[in-house]
């Protein structure tokens, strides 16, 4: 048996390991307890934040105790850690920037877990907020990692911040249609749909006289949760109502002229002509 492998030295190695294992166990348990306690009292986002705070605090204390048990001087270690931090800071500026951006995000709280956001051209549900990055799950189930620095620098749109949203549907009708009747049909559709909010009131704008149609905008409010479904339901209903009422939804028209204004294109049929 080597000389250093005595019971005393083994104990010196084992004790910190036991402290670390105990700390990890305690941190996990306490974190879960805090999260469970927060259910119903805190938002999902706050509960996760508190869980992490408790977890890392307890784990940090356990690591410090473990190092102390091994004979390390915490004060010396912290001093060394300071110097190391400066060195690492130069080497890992991006990570440090992300960490600091993450702290700003935590303080500002532009979104929470479960919110649906758009950032840097990417849309998705927030499934994780960490010190370095935010994790999104897109509608087609892609896992997207967005660095915190990007979130601080670019525009972030939060689609679930407010419980109600306005839907603007562009609708084109033929020039020959009675616009009063079109208005009445569209507003009746929205009125009959219980998912469309009665207040704020729905309205219709005449956007422009387009190339092939009179372009209208039907605007109404819905619950944020129902947005996609109601949009589809109302569009189905618009098509069915227009078919029922004989209102034409035009498609782009192109008129061809052969040199002379308004004159038809001359068409001639020649018999016994050789095929090219």
């Amino acid at each position: 048996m080597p000389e250093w492998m005595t019971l005393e030295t083994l104990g010196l190695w084992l004790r910190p390991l036991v402290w670390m294992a105990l700390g990890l166990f305690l941190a996990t348990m306490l974190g879960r307890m805090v999260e469970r306690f927060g259910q119903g009292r805190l938002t999902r986002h706050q509960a996760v934040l508190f869980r992490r705070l408790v977890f890392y605090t307890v784990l940090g204390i356990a690591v410090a105790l473990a190092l102390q048990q091994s004979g390390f001087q915490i004060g010396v270690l912290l001093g060394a850690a300071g110097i190391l931090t400066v060195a690492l800071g130069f080497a890992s500026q991006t990570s440090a920037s992300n960490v600091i951006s993450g702290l700003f995000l935590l303080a500002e709280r532009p979104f929470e877990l479960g919110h649906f956001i758009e950032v840097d051209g990417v849309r998705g549900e927030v499934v994780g907020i960490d010190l370095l990055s935010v994790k999104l799950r897109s509608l087609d189930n892609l896992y997207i990692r967005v660095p915190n620095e990007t979130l601080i620098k670019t525009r972030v749109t939060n689609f679930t911040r407010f419980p109600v949203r306005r839907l603007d549907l562009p609708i084109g009708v033929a020039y020959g249609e009675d616009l009063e009747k079109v208005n009445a049909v569209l507003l009746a559709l929205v009125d009959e749909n219980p998912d469309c909010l009665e207040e704020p009131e729905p309205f219709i704008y005449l956007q422009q006289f387009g190339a092939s149609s009179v372009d209208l905008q039907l605007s109404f409010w819905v619950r944020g949760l129902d947005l996609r479904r109601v949009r589809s339901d109302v569009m189905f209903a618009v098509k069915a109502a227009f078919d029922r009422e004989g209102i034409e939804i035009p498609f782009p028209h192109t008129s061809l002229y052969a040199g002379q204004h308004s004159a038809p294109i001359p068409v001639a049929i020649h018999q016994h002509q050789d095929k090219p």
Partner: protein
Amino acid sequence: MAQPQSSSGTDGPIAAWGESVPLSPGDTLRNGLSDMTLSVTLLAHEWQVRVARHPGAREETAWHQWCDSALPEHDEGLERFARGNEAPRVALRPALADLPLIVRPNHPLHLPPGTDTTIYMSTLVWLQLMVGEDRRLMEVPVRQPSWTWMGADTMEGELCYASLTAARLEPDNLPRRPWRAMSAVRLRHEGDDYLTLDRFSFPAPIMPLFRQSEPGVDGAHSLWTPTLSIRCERDLATASLKVEATPPPEAGPCTALAPARQPVERNHLVRTMDRIFG
């Protein structure tokens, strides 16, 4: 306890609101309530509930309930619930809406200063399907209510249900429909000028529900809520609200049927009062 009918008679309900109907395996209890058909079938190991809606132009006034031994012909809106050891009995328990209702009179009503005005209105109820002793299978509104928003702007406020009312001033003119809870809203206006009532918030979740002790001519017991008192000291911004303990005298003798969904907490009441008129 009411006994189920084996025929398909449609002369009003078999059981009053909240009273249970005993069923045998294979029996179906059918309910025609306005635009909704609600069928509950008892099988050996499961409950089958079918909810079908066929919106019509006019709201009917009669509640048709009957029991037979045939399975429904369709599976529209079918939901199945595994049976526990509960007794083979089912009851329909009405409840008020789970969110406040924004009630809008068909036409604005102007209230003169220094007067007490009582308007009579009715609101849709939700039906809780209770089986056995008191186990809730599901809950459905008799008609799907429209959503609306109550708040100063679209950032601050809350989602509510929308409800229209004729704001009748004579209780006898209020149409009796079994699936609507009737309410008296007493408005005390102490200001100096006319007050225009174009909408107000009806705090349904904090109101209990009562049932008339005697059935009406249609065989159903009318539902009533306690009187709601709204007092405006100067204008709409200074309004305060109070839910009385009992329905108005016009309701006649009533018995408590369902407690309020939410206990009346002071904070909630204050919040409700903040948004009585939007």
